[in-house]
């Protein structure tokens, strides 16, 4: 089960399992992002390359206008996936916010 919600302050909250079958659902939210935005991973249990692809695409688009995503509160295994993909060099990742 995957869920993506946008809070009143613009923060995007991810939860559950972000796999390849959820690309369209997630993309519909991320393609509307046009400013620096916080993405809360606190309740996200799983991400694969499909989810990384959506985040990378969004980050590339935002960087053209000087904006970026701030990724927060990743669980250990999700953090490991970012590290192995070397996405920790591409994204601003914050812990325990």
């Amino acid at each position, binding site marked *: 089960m995957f869920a993506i919600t946008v809070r009143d302050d613009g923060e995007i909250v991810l939860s559950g399992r972000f796999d390849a079958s959820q690309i369209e659902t997630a993309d519909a939210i991320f393609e509307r992002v046009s400013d620096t935005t916080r993405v809360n991973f606190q309740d996200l249990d*799983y991400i694969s390359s499909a989810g990384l692809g959506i985040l990378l695409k969004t980050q590339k688009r935002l960087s053209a206008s000087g904006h970026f995503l701030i990724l927060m509160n990743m669980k250990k295994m999700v953090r490991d*996936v970012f590290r*192995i993909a070397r996405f920790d060099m591409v994204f601003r990742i914050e812990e325990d916010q």
Partner: protein
Amino acid sequence: MQQSFRRDIRSLDEIFEFLDRQITSRSADEAPAYVLRLAVEELFTNMVKYNRGGDPEIGIGVEINGRAFTVTLTDCGGEPFDMTRAKEVDTLRPLEERPIGGLGIHLVRQMVDELRYSYSGRCGTITVVKYRELPHVRDHRQG
């Protein structure tokens, strides 16, 4: 234990349920289950995307012994397609030059302990092995 799944991205829910029944219930450690889910998702979605002429279903098998978890994905009816030898992505490139694709097989290569491909009788089989962490090794590491 072997089961067949429709060649469709929407099969992923069913595949995760199958893996969870086989693996999560037999491993207290979260890491191998995560790694095997990810490996199966990446390999299965590649089969769906790039081997469209194959049979309508793809077989997934799980074998567990005291040493390792072994998962096989069997894709029949298509030409040989060894994605385990796909070109490595350059993960050191700056943001603007990072490709969107190719990351999946990179993650699989880095996270599993063995990855093999074989082709026989018009069936391609990818075997993924993740070693079990033995309790005394974990205790030692935790120090």
